[in-house]
């Protein structure tokens, strides 16, 4: 065993595979420690209120290395902003909030959003909004009665869009004479609020959404893709590993038992294997996913059940038939070793060299199976996984609309884990099976 491990050093592909696996394991540990399970679920399934400040379908931040002009998100709060108060008499106060920010980018932002928090007992405040671009002009945006938690999506205001003659974020950030020139410099949003009560107050937050966010970008629900990409690693590893352990170990034991007892036990096992071979695995998983449960653990259980009588039984059977005739088994019988002892301590260990490479190469099969189910829309309903990201991206037409990062990031991680395990598995196969090594 240790000799085999030492020999791994001579296979560069094995070392690369091992490196990838170590990386994925480290990533899994980091994910579980940095974002606890509950927190990850909350962030992934919590809805859009958790992700107010992140842009929709933003590129990963490292894309700014190639495209330095990609705008980043700018958030301006009313806390440090210029605030003027004027008593208009009759209990009415006018509060003017000036939210100012410097816009250094040569592309218009992705979107504009304004979040207003007000406190009022009976009469809600009224607000009038003006935009002052760096060129000194002033544009009135809208006026409305402000709800306690008002969300005014400036970009989605259809009337404003009609009045301005274009998408607000484009018109407000470009030169009126030359629409291709982006107005860099100090932009100001002026909120004139009329407060009708003494205790009334208003806070504002302007979000100028950029086109790049986080290490992985965001999806259509503004969620940071870092969460599913990080959390996908432990889930994929756990699913792949458990499914591979469950199916290979049970297959091995059943093959050994069948060969040991022979006759009808062996025959029965062979027949069950043949039935299992024509059982359509993926359609059955789909059946179970649609009709009963999509929980990853139920699916895992079914995957293992379907894998018990897999094609591996035939390979192991051929091997065990030889082992059974070996002199040391005869010796064991002669000194009176029981069947259980013979199967578990003398036969099964002989299959380990065949088992280990197969086991390692099986893991990515299950990782991809989980992703496949997710792509079909049958992924776990709560867990953030790589497959779910691909499904979201695919169903939202990411490839048509050019959001390539959305598909490529989870795909790259899947590909890495696939390559890592198979490269290691193939090298192990050559080490453990000397017949392959000579060639």
């Amino acid at each position, binding site marked *: 065993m240790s000799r085999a491990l030492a020999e791994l050093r001579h296979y560069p*592909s094995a070392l690369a*595979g091992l490196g990838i696996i170590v990386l994925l394991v480290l990533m899994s540990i980091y994910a579980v420690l940095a974002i606890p399970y509950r927190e990850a679920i909350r962030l992934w399934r919590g809805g859009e209120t958790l992700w107010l400040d992140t842009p929709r379908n933003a590129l990963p931040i490292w894309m700014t290395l190639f495209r330095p002009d990609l705008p980043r998100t700018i958030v301006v709060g009313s806390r440090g902003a210029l605030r003027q108060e004027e008593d208009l008499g009759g209990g009415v106060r006018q509060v003017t909030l000036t939210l100012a920010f410097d816009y250094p980018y040569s592309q218009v932002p992705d979107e504009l959003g304004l979040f207003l928090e007000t406190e009022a007992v009976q009469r809600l405040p009224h607000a009038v909004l003006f935009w002052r671009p760096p060129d000194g002009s002033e544009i009135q945006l809208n006026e409305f009665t402000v709800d306690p938690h008002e969300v005014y999506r400036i970009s989605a205001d259809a009337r404003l869009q009609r009045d301005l003659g274009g998408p607000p974020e484009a018109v407000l950030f470009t030169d009126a004479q030359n629409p291709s020139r982006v107005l860099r410099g100090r932009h100001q949003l002026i909120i004139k609020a009329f407060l009708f009560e003494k205790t009334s107050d208003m806070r504002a937050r302007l979000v100028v959404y950029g086109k790049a966010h986080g290490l992985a970008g965001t999806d259509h629900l503004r969620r940071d893709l870092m969460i599913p990409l990080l959390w996908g690693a432990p889930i994929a590893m756990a699913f792949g590993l458990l499914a591979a352990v469950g199916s290979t170990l049970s297959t091995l034991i059943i093959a050994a038992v069948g060969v040991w007892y022979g006759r009808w036990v*062996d*025959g029965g096992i*062979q*027949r069950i294997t*043949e*039935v299992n*071979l*024509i*059982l*359509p*695995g*993926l*359609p*059955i998983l*789909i*059946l*179970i*996913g*649609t*009709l*009963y449960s999509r929980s990853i653990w139920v699916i895992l259980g079914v995957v293992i059940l379907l894998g018990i009588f897999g*094609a591996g039984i035939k390979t192991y059977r051929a091997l065990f038939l030889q082992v059974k005739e070996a002199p040391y088994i005869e010796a064991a019988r002669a000194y009176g070793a029981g069947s259980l002892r013979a199967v578990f301590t003398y036969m099964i260990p002989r299959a380990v060299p065949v088992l280990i490479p197969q086991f390692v*190469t099986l893991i*990515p*099969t299950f990782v*991809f199976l989980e*992703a*496949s189910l997710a*792509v*079909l*829309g*049958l992924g776990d309903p709560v867990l953030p996984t790589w497959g779910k990201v*691909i499904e979201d991206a*695919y169903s939202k037409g990411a*490839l*048509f609309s*050019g959001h*390539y990062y959305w*598909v*490529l990031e989870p*795909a790259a991680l*899947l*590909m890495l884990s*696939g*390559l890592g*395990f*198979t*490269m290691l598995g*193939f090298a192990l196969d050559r080490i453990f099976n000397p*017949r*392959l090594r000579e*060639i």
Partner: protein
Amino acid sequence: MAEALPLITRKSRAAPSTLLRVVAYSATRLGALFLTVVVGIYLTILIANMGGYVDVIKRAEIREQVGISVSFDPVMQRLPPEERQKRIAELVALEEQNLGLDRPFLARTVVYLRDAIQLRLGFAERMTSDTGSRLVRNVILDRLPPTLLLFVSAQILLFFASVFFALALSRRYGSFLDQAVIALAPTSAPPAWFYGIFLILIFAALLRILPFGGMVQAPPPESAVRYALSVLRHMILPMLALFMTTIFLAIYSWRTFFLIFSSEDYVEVAKAKGLTSRAIERRYILRPTLPTIITSFALTLIGAWTGAIILETVFNWPGLGRALFQAIGLYDTPVIVGSTIIYAYLLAVTVFVLDIVYALIDPRVKVGQEGRG
């Protein structure tokens, strides 16, 4: 036992017995496979009916049929509506009793098994076939030809390409090409749909030279030749995806296999006799390894059938897999259960066809020494 026979009887029987043995072998295999299919379908039905879903399908089917027969019955048409509803309810109850829907779970599943084997799969809830039929059988069987077209042609091409490549590589192993194939073998870990996404990204989204998906362009061309060309153009990317996911591993494993066999003593003898390398390959390497190659080909084909579900979805290919995907989206249980059964049949047919090929190739079957079990 063959040695015990007198020489003359062996000779006189030789010609017909080969055919007979192949037929007998095929017949026993067919019988065994049919039993396997029955068990497989029974398991599928058991799984589906654990939540009573097949019961629901059957009840809907009965109501549909009673409704149709009533609407064509002039006597029933003349009855007042309440009376007619009562008659329909009675008929439905009678039919349900006939089918055994009131019997216990296990007895019911046996009835369903009989129906499923005859492909009486009930009515789809939301999907229809291209001809507008709502019979699940038609919905599914309409979609079968595109799937067969794509997968059978891809698999046959793959088979020949990889065997020939593998033979060529085994002739000069250790060469750069050989090393490259070994290094590329792990690329077979991802399934075909995974490569499909990349291919769409490159050839459809970025380069815009091949279609994103579908089977023919819209609107379909009038002339048959142009129609076929359009289908071929749409087949390139899915076939390429299928190739990428299997080709290197197949070449690698078969090359290794051929190499092991080419170090056998009888190959050395053949070389010493001065036979050409082509003759050695054909008679002494390819011939004894073919049964194993066929078996592994069968396994990949089986894998490909079920993998088709997602590949077809990714490429919008109007086949069986996409029908199943649509059924999931529409929650059309009869179609989902029906597709699973059709897949079981498809896998069995695959195994059977390859079994016959196996029987034709494997000398042990011809000579009558096949190991039972």
